[in-house]
């Protein structure tokens, strides 16, 4: 008579259980995990690249015109997000970050929304140059090309 798994069975008796007791012992996500979105409005330049690359269209932007400049609001609705991280990869200023936080179970839909507002000031108008100077500059430019 043979017991093919007897050795394994005896070994397993003295082993710890392999269960991760999650709510008691918190588990950290692995390096490079793409979880909850962080948005830094102070770094954003409103280029709109993230909206262009977002496949499900979870990023929306509203622009309000105020006296100080354009008031721009970015909304990231994580209920529609694929967590592909393309928006963060394409952002030229690193204003979007996908953190390792995976606690995204909510009872209220609004908790999934990440939004940020910033005011983009209009550039100051350049001073108007006198007519003669402009002509001189054009002449100089023409001379260089020759």
């Amino acid at each position, binding site marked *: 008579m043979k017991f093919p798994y007897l050795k394994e069975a005896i070994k397993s008796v003295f082993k710890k*259980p*392999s*269960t*991760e007791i*999650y*709510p008691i012992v918190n*588990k950290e*996500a692995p390096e490079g995990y793409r*979880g909850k979105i962080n948005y830094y409005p102070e770094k954003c330049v409103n280029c709109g690249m993230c909206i262009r690359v977002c*496949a*499900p*269209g*979870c990023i929306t932007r509203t622009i309000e015109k105020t006296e100080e400049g354009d008031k721009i609001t970015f909304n990231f*609705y*994580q*209920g*529609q*997000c*694929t*967590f592909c991280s393309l928006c963060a990869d394409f952002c030229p200023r690193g204003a979007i970050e996908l953190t390792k936080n*995976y*606690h*995204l*179970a*909510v*009872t209220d*839909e609004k908790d*999934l929304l990440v939004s940020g507002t910033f005011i983009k000031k209009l550039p100051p108008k350049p001073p108007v140059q006198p007519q003669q100077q402009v002509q001189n500059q054009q002449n100089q430019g023409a001379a260089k090309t020759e």
Partner: protein
Amino acid sequence: MFKKLIEKSFEKSPWLFHLNTGSCNGCDIEIVSVITPRYDAERMGFKLTGSPRHADIILVTGPITSQSRDRLIRTLAQVPDPKVVVSIGSCPRSTNVFNGSYSVEGPLDKYVPIDVSIAGCPPKPEAIIDGLAKAIEILREKRRAMK
């Protein structure tokens, strides 16, 4: 006396029913991994059932495709009250990347109010356990409100 025992055991052991409405299988695998010995949701009393008539919590995955819409409505009607609807992943919440497709019939909250929504594509098993813990509390409140 038996009634009290039954009341208590209801709260301690909610049964899950997994409903796939055209999911890509990513969230389904995560749900199955919650039941495996590694994450072991059964230590909290969760048990996967095969019949919607036995279920307390319904886990919905996938954007609702036109093929599965009628079946979704029929299955949800079979679940006895009080029931808790949990949407797993981004698809039932908002149809995700399939938004605007001809064969996808809208997010889940068109048909039934969602109690707990778990974001992620797919969510981590730990996140699903978080969501189920919230679902138990909602189920308890609903049971008390029904009395």
